[in-house]
């Protein structure tokens, strides 16, 4: 296959998922210039290993590369917020669904809450809710077992519920 054929096929098969790639990188780095650099880097890498891409879901494949490049980037800056799976989260039994719904009408409030999650919880949340990947696809993209995907999703959502329903600054003041 010639150079221009490969590049053209790459554009059709992989670059159509540019929004997904950028969305993930943007949520992981929390800023625009770094997300752009990461996506550009990830796409160049994807093109180089495009010969090894054996068909299948190009979006999941590209997201895997974006996730890896993002983690390398963040860990070099010591910016990965680690998550300990053995940590016992406080019981979230008294979550109030109505209050969550009420608080989540403000997109900025939700955005801020998601950005406060540890990197690995944020990763699975974004892949699931915004990219609508299946548990199996998330496991493939992140290299974690499906059981871990399941537990991180539930913990991520429970933390989010708590962050969303935390008393606001105004309410805290007596």
């Amino acid at each position, binding site marked *: 296959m010639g150079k221009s054929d490969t590049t053209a096929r790459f554009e059709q098969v992989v*670059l159509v998922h*540019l929004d997904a790639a950028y969305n993930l990188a943007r*949520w992981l780095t929390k800023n625009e210039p770094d997300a752009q650099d990461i996506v550009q880097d990830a796409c160049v890498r994807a093109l180089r290993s495009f010969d090894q891409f054996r068909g299948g879901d190009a979006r999941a494949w590209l997201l895997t590369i974006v996730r890896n490049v993002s983690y390398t980037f963040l860990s070099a800056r010591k910016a990965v917020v680690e998550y300990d799976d053995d940590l016992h989260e406080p019981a979230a039994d008294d*979550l109030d669904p109505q209050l*969550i719904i009420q608080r989540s009408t403000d*997109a900025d409030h939700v955005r801020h809450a998601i950005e406060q999650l540890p990197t690995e919880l944020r990763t699975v949340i974004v892949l699931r809710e915004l990219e609508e990947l299946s548990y199996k696809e998330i496991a493939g993209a992140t290299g974690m077992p499906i059981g871990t995907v399941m537990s991180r999703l539930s913990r991520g959502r429970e933390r*989010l519920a708590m962050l969303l329903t935390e008393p606001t600054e105004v309410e805290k003041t007596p």
Partner: protein
Amino acid sequence: MNCHDRRELIHAYADDELDVASARVLDAHLHDCPSCRAAFAAARAVKAAIANPALYHRAPADLRRRIIKSAHHAHVAAPAAERWRIPWIPLGLAASILIIGLAAYSFFGRSQRSQFALDEQEIVDSHIRSLQSPEESHLYDVKSTDQHTVKPWFDQHVDFSPLVKQLSADGYPLLGGRLDYIHNHPVAALVYGRAKHKINLFIWPGESAHGTSADRGFNIIHWSRDGMTYWVVSDLNTSDLQKFTDLIQASASPKTVPH
């Protein structure tokens, strides 16, 4: 199974990822347990809160164009290793030995060269990327002409101590630096200027042979010293770039070893 252990199942149920049998059992439990029912409603409320189109970050309009541009730059045809297959025609012992010798030479010669080609390609990609970034956003992580600002920044961000020297007196002012990646490893990238040209100096721990080359209109010089590998790349002419290289080599002190 207590209700605490059902938490993950409740989320998987909300995601429609439970098998039919488990879903039926959980559904019956939700019917009887107000606390799990509230947890299920909370899971769905959080899901709905995130699945808000306003939270989806779409790629900026010019990113696609920039990627296509760098893809055209970066894409190289796969190395034609197949060409070196040895034709096992009976040629007699002497001829065979000669062929084996040549094949071994070309194999090892090639693999070393291709490692170089890979380094060189990534270095030039990185150089182009740094210069193409809007408002030089990816050219500098630390923008300063003061080596006493740039040097401590690197000491905090890489686990080796790169040589940082101000060469403005020689006409090559230090402009800043950034953390970059070559083959997924963090490297120090220092940016120098020469009139309107920019020079990227990449430094990382490791040994490399000395050499000069050119790729896509950029001149490249690389060498190693005291356990550190150096690559300079610029659109500057070869003699000015060589002069810059000489200045850097002259200022290299034995302190530039990994700590």
